[in-house]
């Protein structure tokens, strides 16, 4: 202490040291959870596909972090931007979800927003959705026959066959391979890599991290062409393979919530189907064509959407004219005659489709 009393300026060493320790601890903590690639016995892509089929996980729970950096314009929170607890918001920003899984019959996903939450719960035939921000519940009862349907006979019967079939199906458009290992949520994982062969695709590669022990996918990353950081990433930040208890799936609607009963044959579902988008092309360069939201509609919410849309660059060609959104991973074209085209492809491909 006497040194510090004589030379008080030396005391500044203490807060500076604390800052250094805090920052080092933070960085070290990240480094421990991040990429220290574990060494695992090598496995081929085909073996990994078989592993995925044979994995016998009966239950798991954990936290999933989803990050989308598609280069899309930032959505306001009211339309589901960062911090929103609405499922529609998953296209931009970072979102945290909690998942519980106890077999085919019992699942729950909770999307955690800032001071809000949306839940999707399946317990047997009951499917519930809950939104804390609107205090609304929907309840759907699945038909009993749903899970007793006889399996179509042409389905592969062994995992090996399934893996072969999958490889054959994606083979013409995709290069499948493995690329080292990764650590996800503190667990060692193999990396399965899918690369589109078609150069018109904006996707460079899709990397799937597969748990080396339990053989379930832990993380999916989608990289755009020439990108070093993933444009889309969804993965566990924490996972446990213990089967979660029944209390997680026992959803009772709050007494003051508005409950909507829905059924699978609901007219609204049929309506949605009639406006279902059409898909043109297949594989990596498929383009989705649907009706654009009506821009002249004077409802309150879409006005923000209209604003975003009209801030996009105009473009025109032999196919007509419209607004074009170009981003790292997706291109979106809204034509003046009310069509919306979306695809993980270059704008030129969208123009081709629009001109058809």
């Amino acid at each position: 202490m006497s040194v510090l009393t004589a030379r008080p300026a030396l005391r500044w060493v203490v807060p500076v040291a604390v800052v250094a320790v805090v920052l080092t601890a933070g960085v070290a903590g990240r480094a421990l959870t991040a990429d220290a690639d574990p060494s695992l016995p090598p496995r081929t892509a085909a073996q990994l596909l078989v592993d995925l089929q044979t994995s016998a996980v009966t239950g798991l729970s954990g936290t999933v972090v989803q990050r989308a950096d598609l280069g899309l314009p930032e959505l306001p929170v009211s339309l589901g931007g960062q911090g929103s607890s609405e499922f529609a918001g998953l296209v931009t920003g970072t979102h945290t979800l909690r998942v519980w899984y106890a077999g085919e019959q019992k699942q729950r996903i909770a999307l955690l927003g800032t001071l809000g939450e949306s839940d999707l719960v399946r317990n047997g035939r009951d499917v519930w959705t809950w939104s804390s921000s609107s205090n609304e519940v929907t309840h759907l009862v699945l038909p009993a026959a749903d899970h007793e349907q006889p399996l179509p006979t042409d389905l592969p019967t062994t995992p090996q066959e399934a893996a072969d079939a999958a490889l054959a199906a994606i083979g013409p458009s995709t290069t499948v391979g493995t690329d080292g290992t990764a650590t996800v949520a503190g667990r060692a994982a193999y990396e399965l890599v899918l690369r589109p062969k078609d150069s018109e695709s904006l996707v460079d590669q899709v990397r799937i991290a597969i748990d080396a022990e339990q053989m379930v996918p832990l993380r999916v990353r989608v990289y755009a062409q020439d990108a070093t950081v993933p444009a889309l990433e969804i993965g566990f930040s924490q996972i446990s393979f213990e089967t979660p208890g029944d209390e997680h799936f026992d959803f009772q609607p709050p007494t003051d919530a508005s409950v909507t009963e829905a059924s699978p044959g609901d007219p609204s579902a049929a309506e949605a189907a009639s406006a279902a988008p059409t898909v043109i092309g297949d594989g990596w360069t498929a383009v989705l064509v649907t009706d654009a939201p009506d821009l002249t509609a004077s409802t309150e919410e879409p006005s923000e959407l209209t604003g975003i849309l009209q801030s996009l660059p105009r473009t025109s060609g032999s196919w007509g004219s419209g607004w074009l959104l170009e981003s790292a991973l997706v291109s979106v074209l809204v034509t003046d005659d009310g069509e919306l085209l979306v695809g993980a492809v270059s704008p030129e491909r969208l123009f081709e489709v629009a001109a058809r």
Partner: protein
Amino acid sequence: MSVVERPRTAPVISTRMLRSELRLIFGRRRNIAGMGVLASVPIIIAVAIAIAGTPEAGEGPTFLSQVTSNGLFVGLAALAAELPLFLPLAVAAISGDAVAGEANIGTLRYLLTVPVNRTRLLAVKYAAILVFTVAAVLLVAAVGVLIGLALFGGGPATLLSGSQVGTAEGLWRLLLVCGYMSVCLAAFGAIGLFVSTLTEQPIGATIAVVGLALISQILDAIASLSPIHRFLPTHYWLAFGDLLRDPISTDLVLTGMLSAAAYALIFWTAAWARFAGKDVTS
């Protein structure tokens, strides 16, 4: 002016200095008025809702639409409403006053003539700030719960996950929220204490610290700055919502407490370094 008037010659293990500090904080008329303002928010919320009815779900401030189903939510709604400005303002007023206030009215040099070392003085000052922080948070919650239960009664409280709990469990969750907010605000008080050692103008220290809280919240709202968000002192404050899920989600809350501890440690030691070398001239 002598030791008798300001008895701060306490032995090493004694709460006498702290008690005297607390008497000063809770005895000052301006602080009592400030706590009155803090306590008025839940009363305003409860009375307004009793008269005008609840807003539709999804409209108005968070938790407000649930107030009528359980009075506990008045406390929660008041805490959520006061967290961005009123509570930081109260903590900033007390912590900004801690050293600069004494320097400003000329009592600091007398305080330092008694045989108490500056480290201990600073520790006592910070302990008093902690007590005030906890008291302020509990005051808002308690007033909210009391008036809420009186006007709307208890009942099933809906958690963010959609499950409902009884009043006892609801109270427990509210206490957890109070604890977490106190931790966040206590870290903020350490920043106030540090700024307070830099100046002899308590009002300047308070304004600077409140400004910092607001700037931090503004930066936190700009999505394109997300890489720096986790370093902001206010970034984890809203994680208190995770204590209202079923089951409680602890990841963010724990990170928030670590962040608060780091901030408290950094700024308390900075205050210590500054205060030790400070020439007390007034």
